[in-house]
């Protein structure tokens, strides 16, 4: 499938955050959003996920196989925001089982997904008892337990150690091989083949380093 954003404008209150931005991504490809703090990376991701209304422009998706053609875009997106979307009072398995049923298109089983992020064995642990990095990895599991072709990731690797970052890179590569699409906002260089970099905002931003 393909995703096209044409001349989109997004407002936050009265302020124009994203103006006249266009981008396209096709299956198996990734876009890395770069930009200084406050440049509007998160705003753009939320707008793409349908969590913010567009003030202008269009957001379209095509699917040559027809499988996803008639489904609204927001139902095809996994949005991983800065919050983990897990209930502290419930166990890891309860949280993931809920999202597996709720998000639709069940994909990996909870045990398999936990194994993929290296946290098999934590099923019965309450989410509140986990460390920051572990919580993030459980949140990443949510992307695996139900299949949605578009991953919109907002600083997905925050809180992860180097080994977990590599692991997550492999998961993203596997999703791209699986004909998925990824749009990620991050400061950490992601090791993705053919990833296109889009710089958001007017301020000069050195793509290889920091702002």
């Amino acid at each position, binding site marked *: 499938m393909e995703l096209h954003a044409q001349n989109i404008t997004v407002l936050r209150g009265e302020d124009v955050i994203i103006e006249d931005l266009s981008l396209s991504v096709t299956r198996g490809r990734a876009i890395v959003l770069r930009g200084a703090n406050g440049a509007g990376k998160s705003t753009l991701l939320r707008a793409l996920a349908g*969590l913010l209304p567009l003030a202008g422009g269009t957001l379209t998706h095509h699917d040559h196989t027809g499988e996803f053609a008639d489904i609204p875009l*927001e139902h095809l997106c996994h*949005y991983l925001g*800065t*919050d983990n*979307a897990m209930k502290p009072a419930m166990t890891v398995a309860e949280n993931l*089982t809920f999202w597996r*049923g*709720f998000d*639709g298109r069940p994909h990996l089983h909870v045990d398999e997904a936990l194994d993929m992020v290296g946290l098999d064995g934590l099923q019965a642990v309450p989410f509140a008892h986990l460390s920051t990095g572990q919580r993030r990895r459980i949140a990443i599991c949510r992307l695996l337990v139900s299949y949605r072709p578009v991953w919109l990731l907002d600083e997905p690797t925050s809180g992860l150690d180097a080994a977990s970052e590599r692991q997550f890179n492999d998961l993203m590569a596997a999703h791209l091989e699986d004909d998925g699409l990824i749009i990620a906002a991050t400061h950490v260089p992601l090791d993705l083949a053919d990833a296109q970099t889009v710089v958001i905002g007017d301020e000069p931003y050195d793509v290889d380093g920091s702002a």
Partner: protein
Amino acid sequence: MSALLLRDLRLALRAGGGAATVLLFYLAVVVAMPFAIGPNAQLLATVGGATLWIGALLASLLGLERLFQADREDGSLDAMLVARVPLALQVFTKGLAHWLVTGLPLALVCPLFALFLNLDGTTTLATMATLFVGTPALSFMGAAGSALTVSLPRGGLLLSVLVLPLCIPVLIFGVGAVRAATTEPDPFLPPFLLVSAISLFFAVLGPFAGALALRQGRE
């Protein structure tokens, strides 16, 4: 939808979920009433039905503030907004879960609390029946109010101010039905059916209003 219902019930019944707190608060309101009114058994029996209703009304407001706020704080609300389950159905489900852990237990413990107020059998049964059909209106209306105030700091206060006036029709006909059950010429059924109708009305309107509020509140 059943996944969401199960999750909400599970969260409410777990430690810190607040299901027990609601009942304790209800007990506190009902017990405080005789101290305020005085130990006149006759008078207590007269205002007993109304007391049980007011207590239920206040108690069901308790859990409403957190209904959507908790989901917003941990990021679940974002995922719920892009879920394929229609948003109105999600609001309905959360309202239903709220009723199952608040309104239903309030109606069930009502005969026990009626003892504190010296209520006779008929009044007790009538109160229980009207609470059973009337509290869903509070939950579904409250769910809409909760969706509206989700992004506001101290939204709970505003929520109470918004929802309480809307509860007045439920209160009028609920208490009216209880009174009619004991005073001879007044029929019990018409006010009772009106309460049921209000509940059904808000079970439909509340979820749609709540979904609209959540969509407008996207940020």
